């Protein structure tokens, strides 16, 4: 049955499976599974899904209802595992900074939920593309979490090692590519359905390369745990700083008005 697939698809499938195996082996070999448990589970689940797909395609074929249900159900598990791995990335970057983390996770989850809600609301287009819409909503959530984490880290000048940066890029770009891929497939089904799978696999292969580099960096990288200051310092300084900023703004307004009043 698999032999009926185009040669390019088979090659890409083999490449992504080998890439996944390499990454999984690298994580286990360098004992990074303790540091990245959800990423390990996600990569493992991805490999299991490949094995399941092979089995189902051989047994039931590509057009079977059983295959359709099983593959898309397993995809739900994979997307959930990836979302958890994305949250793990977020915690790895901001988790050391307890105060900022408490703030960031709330904002990121709220933004993620909003994006999911909007996608589902705008994407209501009958049941034909319901699975696509659900996948796009999940990918939008992951992309929001990834980009939000990088923006938070940038705003607060939080330390972001090379491994975290590559990991975040992988999550974000993978999700964006999947959203684009699914959107084009849903809109231009006839012309695009032949390319959809190849584009997804090429994109995933690229992401796997990023993650292999990320894990190699994580194996050698030293991530110091910062010692936090007493909460009192922030409690005193933050309102004072804001008050002064407001005064500065008022001063600017006065300056502008004074300039305007000049003859």
């Amino acid at each position, binding site marked *: 049955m698999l032999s009926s697939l185009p040669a390019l698809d088979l090659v890409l499938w083999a490449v992504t499976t080998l890439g996944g195996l390499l990454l999984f082996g690298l994580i286990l070999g360098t004992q990074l599974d303790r540091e990245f448990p959800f990423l390990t589970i996600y990569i493992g689940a991805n490999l299991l899904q490949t094995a399941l797909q092979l089995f189902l395609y051989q047994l039931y074929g590509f057009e079977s209802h059983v295959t359709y249900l099983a593959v898309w159900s397993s995809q739900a598990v994979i997307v959930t595992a990836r979302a958890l791995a994305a949250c793990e990335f977020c915690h790895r970057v901001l988790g050391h900074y307890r105060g900022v983390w408490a703030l960031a996770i709330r904002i990121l989850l709220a933004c993620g939920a909003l994006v999911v809600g909007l996608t589902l609301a705008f994407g209501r287009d009958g049941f034909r593309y319901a699975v696509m819409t659900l996948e796009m909503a999940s990918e939008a959530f992951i992309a929001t979490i990834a980009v939000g984490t990088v923006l938070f880290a940038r705003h607060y000048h939080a330390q972001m090692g090379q491994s975290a940066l590559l990991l975040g890029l992988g999550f*974000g770009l993978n999700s964006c590519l999947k959203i684009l891929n699914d959107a084009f497939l849903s809109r231009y089904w006839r012309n695009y359905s032949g390319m959809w799978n190849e584009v997804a696999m090429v994109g995933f292969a690229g992401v796997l390369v990023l993650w292999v580099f990320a894990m190699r960096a994580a194996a050698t990288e030293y991530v110091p745990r910062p010692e936090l200051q007493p909460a009192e310092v922030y409690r005193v300084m933050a309102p004072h700083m804001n008050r002064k*900023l407001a005064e500065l703004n008022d001063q600017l307004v006065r300056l*502008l008005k004074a300039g305007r009043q000049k003859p």
Partner: protein
Amino acid sequence: MNVAFFILAVVFALAVAALLLVASRSSRRVRRRRDGLAVLDSAPQHLCNMGPIRRSQDGVDLEYVASRGGRELAKRLRRERHEVALLYLDSLRADFEQLLRIARVVALLSPEVSSSHEYERLRLALQFRFRFQLVKLRLLFGDAAMPQVAALGEMVSTLAIRMETAMQALGERATLAANLALNSER
């Protein structure tokens, strides 16, 4: 799939990807540029020049030069003073940004952060930057009162002094922590 949703999805994906690439590139640049402790050590440096700058903008001098040296010299002096004022304004902005950076380090290393304070600071900082550009434009067209620019400098200075005092109160512990937080991959 309807056209509107398709366009929204494509725009969202492209925007997020671009934002991710730009933010990760600039965060790498920030990391390279900033050497941990430097953020805390290099507290506002330009504010000490405020006195001489203010004196240099005194209108009486201009009148004196015009009466003694002629209109050409007075014109040249006005132009040069204008440039000095613009440079001073830029340095004030640099000092202000430095103070904001210190405030962010304080927030980063605090076990509790208030979302309202953080949002307020972000909003005020954006507002400040916008208004600052307007003032700069006004000065660029020679239409801003220098004493008020000096008053602005005084306010940044007050803020700097308070921040510096608070940073000293943090002591070595915070300095070490900030160093750990900001000194990546050295």
